């Protein structure tokens, strides 16, 4: 014979990631490392921003390059003579704290003072997954359309800095970069919004300055 029983589980599926994110952060802080993660659509300029920060600062930087197939971005970053670990997400649409934890194991943390994480190109899924970084920067470009910000409210509400990139192309694609700035401010009044053209070196100093402010 058998009986039927109602059993409490009370298990938050999101907790596993949160715990690992906290562990990553603790691990980084023990080594005095500042960690910033970049999210944004495919092609918005995340890898370009990583490259520009490497070339224009004196920080000892290590990079975790996330992608569905990560070797392309990792190969680009390697040329700048910094340690880089490619994180393949395979079928998944986002990095999670578990993958980042393993990535950190493969970086020479004792020799670094900054870790930059490039997330998979996606404005939706990364919202659910803290990685353990100190600062999240969302990079969007005007070529995605100037309604991109209002279409993806949560990532803008949960990021610390918004970069509106490729302003050099705004006229060509008929996009209003200032509308994107206004939308971001409306969604998150405390967020720092920077217009940039990483191709032309515009806005980079300001982005670096914001990262440095967050470090202190």
């Amino acid at each position, binding site marked *: *014979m*058998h*009986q*039927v*029983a*109602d*059993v*409490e*589980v*009370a*298990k*938050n*599926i*999101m907790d*596993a990631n949160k715990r690992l994110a906290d562990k990553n952060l603790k691990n980084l802080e023990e080594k005095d490392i500042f960690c910033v993660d970049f999210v944004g659509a495919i092609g918005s300029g995340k890898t370009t921003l990583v490259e520009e920060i490497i070339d224009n600062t004196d920080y000892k930087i290590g990079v975790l390059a996330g992608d569905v197939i990560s070797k392309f971005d990792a190969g680009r970053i390697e040329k700048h003579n910094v340690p880089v670990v490619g994180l393949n997400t395979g*079928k*998944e*649409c*986002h990095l*999670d704290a578990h993958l980042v934890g393993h990535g950190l194991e493969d970086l020479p943390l004792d020799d670094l003072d900054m870790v930059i994480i490039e997330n998979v190109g*996606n404005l*939706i*899924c990364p*919202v*659910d997954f803290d990685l353990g970084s100190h600062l999240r920067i969302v990079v969007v470009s005007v070529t995605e359309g100037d309604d991109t910000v*209002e*279409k*993806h*409210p*949560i*990532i803008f*509400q949960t990021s610390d800095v918004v970069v509106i990139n490729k302003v050099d192309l705004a006229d060509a694609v008929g996009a209003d970069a200032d509308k994107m700035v206004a939308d971001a401010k*409306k*969604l*998150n*009044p*405390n967020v720092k919004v920077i217009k940039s053209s990483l191709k032309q070196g515009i806005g980079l100093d300001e982005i670096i300055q914001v990262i440095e402010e967050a470090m202190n």
Partner: protein
Amino acid sequence: MHELSMAQGIINAVLETAEANNATEVNEVTVEVGRLAMINPEQLEFILGVLIENTIMEDAKIVFEEIPAEIECNDCKFHGEAILDDSDHYAPLVKCPECDSLSVETLNGKDIVVKNIVIEKPDDA
């Protein structure tokens, strides 16, 4: 859009608890899904259906309970359930119902929680 990893997490939680309670079968699973979690319950249900084949939860009825978004408004200090406008968004727009502000702290509604399961087990276990 990461329903696969969420489904896997749900199944692991269910089977762990079921085994710890000597279950021979899982009849029902209740899962709370926050309105702000970036998953689509329909897709989640579909993937769960595929993954539970040949487990003791194969025939379980899966009940989803929607958890509303609880917010505190940065502008007017309203605390309570948010208005969610997802008429033309996949990711909903979270708004204060009192003053329409979009500047809000989210207090609840982002999580996916396996709440409880109904199991069958032998009488003497």
